[in-house]
Structure formats: structure tokens, C-alpha cells
């Protein structure tokens, strides 16, 4: 009669692979995986997984022999979803992949493969949405600033896109929900955080006040709002589709959905 084991890990890719390594070494397979912040169970043993580069590397090398690069990207990309419900499917997916003769990545009838694939698709969709819905405001010192609050932690995934696209500009994208951002200036994006009393947290919806903006900024925002209204064909109004494609939770940070500022500042 074996006890039930819980694995506690740090929800990183390395941590996950170390957990798999530990499970095989200890010949103990967890009934659940939990993160640092989760409440530990009352009647179960807990094994604390310490992420280890070498152990994780061995598992990853083994996985490379079993799965395609796309499938590996899918597995590691899922962690951006920050979903506790996915811990166990991810763990089991890795185990199944290691034990199978061939690749299991296209077996969509398997619930774990499906859970991982579906989650990765959601992560990619959120990433696309951020590539769509980031709206920069030009500040007085010519930095382009944008605030976002994505459902998943996808900011690191969109940084390369913007670094290529606006390689000559300075820009800052800030994830308000997770309280960190990326600042790009001169060919390199760096992760930045702010003190909890910094001015950035006092911007209610990420809108900069007139004094902080570049002289032409309000005019361009108004031009964009005008364009947004003018391009709509009123005979074809379709509010349901509008809300489906542009969910209301993103409106807060969209320039075209803000009312016109009446001369303040």
C-alpha cells in the first residue's frame, strides 16, 4: 500500500522536466503536481522538486529523440498559460512520450495530448491578440508606451515580434496584471519592473495624460478614432460579431474605444 505523493515544483520548463526525472529515479509517480503558492494537501506526502539543469537536460535530450521541435515548443509554450489544471496532463504527456515507441504528438484522441495541444492553441491565440491589440502612445521623450493585461503571460512571446518591427524606436510594453514590462532601446529588449508606488500604476487605463504625451499624440489618436468610425458600414452593423472578434475585456486599452479627451492637462 503506497502513499499518495504530491510533487511541488516551480512551474518552469526546467522544473517540470526535473519532476519527470525525479519520478523515474524514485519510481514514484505523483497523483498531482502543485506550485509554490498552492495550498499543500493534508494527508499526502510531498516531494519538493528542485529544478536542476542537468537532470532537466537529460530528460529534454530524451524527449528530442521522441518528439518534433514543434511538439516541444507546444509543451514548453503551455507553461505561459499559468494553468494549474495543466500540471498533470503536461507531466503525463512527457512520461507517455518517453515510454512510447514512436511520437505520440499527433494522437489527439489522448486526453493529455489534447489538453496540451488545446492549451497551446489558446496561448498562441492570446499572443496573436496582443500583437493585434497593443496600442502605443508616443511620449514626450519619443518612447512608445503601451499597457496590456493579457489572459496568459504572453508578453515574452510578443517581444521578438515588436523588436523586429520597431527596431529603430524605443518602446515599453507593460503587463499591468503581472506587473512587469519589456523596455526596448537600441537593439535589445530588457525586462523591467517598477516600485509599487511608481506612476505607471496610477494610470487607470494605461492612458497617458497630455503633459506626458508627444505634441502630436492626441491628434493622431483622434485621427484613428475618426477612421475607426468612418470605415464602418452602418447598413451592415453586426454587434455580436464585433464583440466576438474584439472582446470587451480588451477595450480598456484600445485607443479607438476611448472617448475623446476634452481639453485637459
Amino acid at each position, binding site marked *: 500500500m503506497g502513499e499518495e505523493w504530491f510533487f511541488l515544483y516551480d512551474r518552469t520548463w526546467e522544473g517540470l522536466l526535473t519532476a519527470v526525472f525525479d519520478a523515474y529515479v524514485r519510481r514514484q509517480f505523483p497523483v498531482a503536481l502543485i506550485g509554490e503558492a498552492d495550498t499543500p494537501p493534508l494527508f499526502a506526502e510531498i516531494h519538493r522538486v528542485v529544478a536542476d539543469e542537468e537532470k532537466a537536460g537529460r530528460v529534454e535530450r530524451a524527449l528530442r529523440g521522441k518528439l518534433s521541435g514543434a511538439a516541444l515548443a507546444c509543451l514548453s509554450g503551455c507553461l505561459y498559460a499559468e494553468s494549474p489544471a495543466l500540471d498533470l496532463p503536461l507531466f503525463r504527456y512527457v512520461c507517455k512520450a518517453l515510454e512510447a515507441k514512436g511520437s505520440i504528438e499527433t494522437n489527439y*484522441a489522448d486526453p493529455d495530448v489534447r489538453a496540451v495541444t488545446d492549451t497551446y492553441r489558446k496561448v498562441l491565440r492570446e499572443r496573436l491578440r496582443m500583437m493585434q491589440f497593443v*496600442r502605443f502612445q508616443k511620449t514626450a521623450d519619443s518612447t512608445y508606451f503601451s499597457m496590456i493585461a493579457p489572459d496568459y503571460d504572453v508578453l515574452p512571446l510578443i517581444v521578438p515580434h515588436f523588436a523586429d518591427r520597431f527596431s529603430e524606436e524605443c518602446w515599453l510594453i507593460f503587463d499591468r496584471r503581472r506587473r512587469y514590462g519589456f523596455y526596448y532601446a537600441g537593439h535589445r529588449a530588457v525586462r523591467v519592473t517598477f516600485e509599487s508606488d511608481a506612476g505607471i500604476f496610477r494610470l487607470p487605463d494605461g492612458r497617458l495624460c497630455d503633459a506626458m504625451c508627444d505634441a502630436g499624440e492626441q491628434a493622431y489618436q483622434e485621427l484613428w478614432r475618426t477612421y*475607426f468610425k468612418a*470605415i464602418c458600414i452602418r447598413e451592415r452593423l453586426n454587434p455580436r460579431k464585433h464583440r466576438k472578434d474584439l472582446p470587451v475585456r480588451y477595450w480598456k486599452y484600445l485607443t479607438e474605444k476611448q472617448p475623446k479627451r476634452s481639453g485637459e492637462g
Partner: protein
Amino acid sequence: MKEDTLRKLRILAESAKYDVSCSSSGTVRRNAKGGVGNTVGGVGICHSFAEDGRCISLLKVMLTNYCIYDCAYCVNRRSNDIPRATLSVSELVELTLEFYKRNYIEGLFLSSGVVRNPDYTMERLVRVAKDLRTVCRFNGYIHLKSIPGASRELVNEAGLYADRMSVNIEIPDETSLKFLAPEKDHESVYRPMRYIQQGALESAEERKKHRHAPRFVPAGQSTQMIVGAAGESDRDILSLSSALYARPTMRRVYYSGYVAVNTYDPRLPVLKQPPLVRENRLYQADWLMRFYQFRVEEIVDAAHPDLDLEIDPKLAWALRHPEQFPVDVNRADYEQILRVPGIGVKSARMIVCSRRFGRLTGYDLKKMGCVMKRAQYFITCGELEAKGVNELHPEGVRALLTQPGGRRKQPDGQLSFVFKEETV
């Protein structure tokens, strides 16, 4: 100056909005040192969605809405009394860049009314694209309209800067076109299309020899047809689309339900509403031809010249051909599975991949994203079979799938109790 730009932008966007195309797909181009922008390829990026449900990917605007033509279906026709405006080349270039740097847009979609003559107009369009590409080193997306009647040299130059070019057919039947737009004919549309095609093919040939030879409209060309302005049938429209897709560079045909913009013209039908359902069915048929390996004769034929508005064209085809069903999802070819109503390209691929590992059940199919409400009548998967299209007959299936509020209905033969709801 800004007030004036605001007014012009409003007028010129309102004039441009009846052009449907807005996609930014088909080109992958990384940014270059000192440049601004890139193009991601894939399905492109839509930056916003207008309240009519259409996406906003490109800054869709006209350079001018003055026009020497008087086409009955067009809002910008010469005889319409609407506000007119013209943007200068530098104004538009600046506007595009400033919008782009704020991540409002993916690039520029530039069209124009015809002023003086086609070549003069085309030259100005080319100047905008040229300035963006060479002076501002803009690497975002550019979609240029080719003006019917423009010379070959100008089209060839435009192709070097644009990602995609388009010429609109507008009315699929030439006699109707001449009736509604006496100054136009099909030849004036097909000629620039041929120029674009030849330019792209020559460039592709050239690039086989020299890797750095310039690309020519890498995202191909598109066109648009107005639906419901003349008396054409869906068969006319789709046959033309099918012929166009057979050409090497034609990527997209757009269908635009006619919005009654010029109600006073007796040559046009009186429509309360744009024919939105018909437009949607045409797009579905278009998808069947492009992604589902359907031939146009299978979708519409002499006996069924118009698409069924009540059911989608794939279901309509399946109901006309019950002998093709049921399809065994665990054995049938990909092509056969693709023809099952309720199964799309994505789920068909998943089915073909997954069945190597084991037998698939109805539950698996549902989890993979198949719409079982429709698919159930057309498949078998080795389970206790429900009644299929051959047992229920096509009319029966049709009735089941078109009944109003079908989702709420109890399945037949199930015992059900009716409880009265008590309100407290």
C-alpha cells in the same frame, strides 16, 4: 493642418470602405536595418474590428474620391453630390507611418477615384508606395489598386513596391457591367490583371537565377465582385471565381453584398438590406473550392444555379449525394472525410493523424472540434450507429437541421417530464 487632415481622412475612408479586401497575408518580410516594419505572413494581423464585424488590418483609404466615371453601383460616381477630398502624397505617407508606429495598422490599402486619366491616377498611387518603400524604408504591407486602363509600365513599377495588387471586376457579366458602368468593360479589368500576372511570373523566373532579384507583388493579386447589383446567378459568380483561381497569381476573390448607396438610380434593384446571407454562402462556396477540393460544378449546376440560403453549400452537396455516405472516419481517405458536413480542414487532419493510434469514437471527434450536430448523419465510427442520411432520407436530415431552435429540442423517443417552474 490637422483639422483639415481629419476631415479628409473621414471623407476618404468613407469612400473606400465598400472595398472588402483588407487582408495582410501572403508575404513574409523581416525588417531591415534602419527601416520600420515587417510583414508576418500566415493569415496576417487584424488590428481592430469595426462595428460592422469586418476586420481593420490596413489603413484603407482613397487618395482622392473625385472620379471621372459614373458607375451606377459606386458611391463615388461623378453625379453623386458627396463631399470630395484629395490627400497629398506626403500627407498620406506621414499618416501611414504614424499609424503604423502606434500599432494601429499593418500597412496601407490604397485606392483612388480616377482623375484626369488612368495613368495620371496610377502614377500618384505608385508615388505613395515608392516614397514609403524607398524614402521611409517602410517594410509593412502595401496593397495597391491597379487603376483599370493604366499603362503596363506603371503597373510594373507598382508591383515592385506593393505586396498585393488588385483590380475589381465588380460585375461578373459583361453586358450588365456595360449597362451599369457604360465607360468600363471587362477588357479594361483583365488587361491590368494580365500585367500583374506576367510581372509576377517573370520575377519568379528571375529569382530562380538571381536570389536577390526584386520580388513582384509577392502576395499575388485579388479581385472583388458585387453581389446583387445586377441579375447574375451564383453559378455565374462562382464559375468566374473558379476560372480566376486557375490563374497563377490570383489569391482571393472577394464578394461584396450590394449596399444600396445610389437608391435613385432606376437601373439598380431596390434592396432594404444588403444580401448578407447570400454573400456568406458565396464565401462558404469559395472556401470549398480553395480548401476542400470541390469543383465549381459540384457546388452549383444548371439544376441548382443558386446556393441554398437555408443550409450551407457543403451540407447542400451532401444532401444531393447521399450515395457518398456514410463515411467511415477510421478508414476513409482524407479527401472523403473533408467532404463530411461538420468536419473542417483542421479536424479532418486531426482525424487522419490520430486514427493511427487507435479507433476513434464519436466522443473523440467531438473533442477534436467536429460539429456532431451535422456530422452525425454522415459518418460511422464503429459504434452503435445512429440513423444516417440514407435511413432518414436527405429531406428528413434537412428538416432536422433547419428546424428553428433545434438546440433546445429533446431527442425523439426520450422520456421527458414537464415540471412547472415556481417563482418565489
